[in-house]
């Protein structure tokens, strides 16, 4: 066996990891002097984790897919050739269900030019267009934003509720545990999608009041989703999907975290912390939660893909985003009417959903391997041997 230290053969990606991590560390060093020396071991460990990740081709594919998705979602609205609601049939009759690669012409002085401000000339609709002549590429780019924002908003709240309830249930035990877990069972007993359908069918009216009643809320949401101000109305449906997913997304986490908290609380250091008078919420948040964070992180990553899929499914069922808001599930739903003639309306948004969900699943799987001590050893060994 080689000595511990900088002896393992590094791949190009490992060097990139080194550079990035060291840069971040030196920035933190500037912000908080002495940080680097205090966290030397942590930095080394973090690098090793990333090296292990680098040894997994599926993981790298996943990261690539997810990174591309995030880039597209962030920049999409700025690089889209047209707006998500631009009916190009007004410019050129040919835009109606235009097939991929079709060229349309915007004439000088036409309605499109004068009212919508589209420069005259020829445009290639790379991925085709729908029955209003809306450019599919633009709608997919905007749709990426919708998916990402929905996923983030859902994942910020749902799991948080579940994690907190699970921690309390697992640590407290007794009647508290019994009550919270039976409540969780009730929610799990319903298929999540059905429950989400029920909630997203009932909620929009109430949500609409909130969204339209508080200008700040609607302004933030419009910016996040990159929508035009006149589309506040359809926004309510999208928000109600998010709320519905909050309601159905916590039970899995509550159960997962409860189980792990139950075993983590038996650790002597938890008992020791209690015996020396550390308050309960500190024990929960500083000793139990960090010690079970690995599986939670894996679960979160896998769920990111799942949320995107469920949101697309709800939209496909006509419950989520309402046109003209661009949403992959909804595009498929609307395009299905013209299938198979206009196959591209179904194929491309479906493909995008597939790739993104696949990406998150690959990342989640690889994270599980990297975090699980049993498989971790094997991967680490590969790193040290240089493979």
């Amino acid at each position, binding site marked *: 066996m080689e000595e511990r230290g900088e002896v393992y053969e590094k791949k190009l990606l490992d060097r990139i990891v080194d550079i990035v991590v060291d840069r971040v560390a030196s920035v933190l060093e500037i912000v908080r002097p002495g940080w680097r*020396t*205090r966290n030397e*071991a942590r930095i080394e460990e973090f690098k090793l984790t990333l090296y292990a990740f680098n040894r997994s081709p599926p993981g790298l594919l996943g990261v690539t897919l997810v990174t591309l998705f995030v880039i597209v979602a962030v920049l999409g609205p700025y690089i889209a050739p047209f707006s998500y609601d631009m009916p190009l049939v007004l410019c050129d009759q040919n835009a109606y269900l235009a097939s991929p690669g079709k060229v349309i012409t915007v004439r000088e002085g036409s309605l499109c030019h004068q009212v919508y401000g589209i420069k005259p000339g020829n445009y290639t609709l790379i991925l085709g267009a729908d029955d209003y002549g809306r450019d599919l590429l633009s709608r997919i780019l905007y749709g990426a934003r919708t998916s990402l924002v929905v996923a983030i908003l859902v994942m910020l709240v749902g799991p948080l509720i579940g994690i907190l309830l699970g921690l309390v249930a697992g640590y407290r*035990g*007794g009647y508290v545990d019994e009550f919270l877990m039976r409540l969780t069972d009730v929610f799990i007993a319903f298929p999540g999608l059905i429950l989400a359908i029920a909630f997203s069918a009932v909620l929009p009216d109430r949500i609409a009041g909130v969204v339209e009643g508080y200008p700040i809320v609607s302004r933030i949401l419009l910016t996040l989703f990159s929508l035009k101000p006149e589309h506040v109305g359809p926004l309510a449906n999208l928000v109600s999907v998010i709320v519905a997913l909050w309601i159905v997304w916590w039970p899995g986490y509550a159960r997962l975290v409860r189980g792990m908290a139950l075993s983590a609380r038996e*650790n*002597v*250091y938890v*008992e*020791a*912390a*209690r*015996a*020396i*008078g*550390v*308050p309960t919420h*500190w024990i929960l948040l*500083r*000793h139990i939660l*960090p*010690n079970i964070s690995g599986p939670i992180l894996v679960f979160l990553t896998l769920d990111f893909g799942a949320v995107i899929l469920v949101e697309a499914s709800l939209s496909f069922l006509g419950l989520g985003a309402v046109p003209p808001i661009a949403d992959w599930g909804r595009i498929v739903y609307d395009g299905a009417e013209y299938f198979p003639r206009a196959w591209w309306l179904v194929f491309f948004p479906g493909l995008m959903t597939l790739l993104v969900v696949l990406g998150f699943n690959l990342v989640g799987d690889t994270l599980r391997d990297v975090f699980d001590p049993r498989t971790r050893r094997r991967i680490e060994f590969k790193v040290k041997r240089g493979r």
Partner: protein
Amino acid sequence: MSLSLECDPIIEVRDLYVNFYTYAGVVKAIDGVSFTICRGETYCLVGETGCGKTVTAKALTRAIPSPGRIEKGEVIFYPEPGKSVNIMELSDEEIRRIRGKMISYIFQDPSSALDPLYTLGHHISETMLAHKLVRSMRDGIREAVRVLKRVLMPDPEERVKSYPHELSGGMKQRGVVGISLSTKPKILIADEPTTAVDVTIQAQLMSLLKDLKSSEGLTLILITHNMGLVAEMCDRVAVMYAGRIVEEAPVLDIFKNPRHPYTRALLKAVPNPLSKIHRLESIPGTIPDLIKPPKGCRFHPRCPYFNEICLKKPPEFKVGAKHRVACWLYGGVESVNEG
């Protein structure tokens, strides 16, 4: 109820009963334990595994884990002479402030008593922060260096930054002691502090505890089954058997003049530091099942002096100035109380 000891008591346990509610049945883990500990002394609880030493110690701050429950009894804590607090009547928040701040614990296995995710300094700082002795984590870590100096940790400036896996067994043990002492508690409960470490570290730890005791005026409650340690450290000893104290005496009396048949058997089973080496004897039988404990004296099924009267619970008889024993053999002597 309990003996008048003519000392300044720091903690007094009166008629304590603790049950554990398990699926197999109700385990009567502590069955009427009473004792008084004097300020500044070292009090030892000895006995076999499962006799209730640890549970008794945990009951002092009501830290019995579920499914255990304190059924009956009082624990009176005297933070200062003349001032008393009934631990059983405090709210959860009040008891939390006593844990660690007034009554602190050292756990058996120092390596599992430290959270692997945090540095030693963080642990010490957290304890002080929990009792508002420092203003922030950073202050606490600075203070932790001083704490580690007190427990004679080599190179304390570096060790505060160490994670548990980077420390040796002895250093971890010192660190754990440091955590417990960082709040300057009045009582330190050491629950088998030497079981998980080797003998050289045992010796170091014991001399450290002795020094700290004299320099900081600690009252030490030592839980152990190591008779050598008892002889070395203790002022008074309580021998526990199956959830009861069977004999309590100053340390010399226990070794020179053990009265209870169980104590005698126990001393024959381990090398006695005060007598010549003889063949060690085992105690026949096994520890009783505490779900269905034997009637009367709980030692009677294993006792060579068994008599009909043993089926009645023996009261405590006073057999010396500070020596009491719960056995009918001493029924002729003046009775202390009727248990």
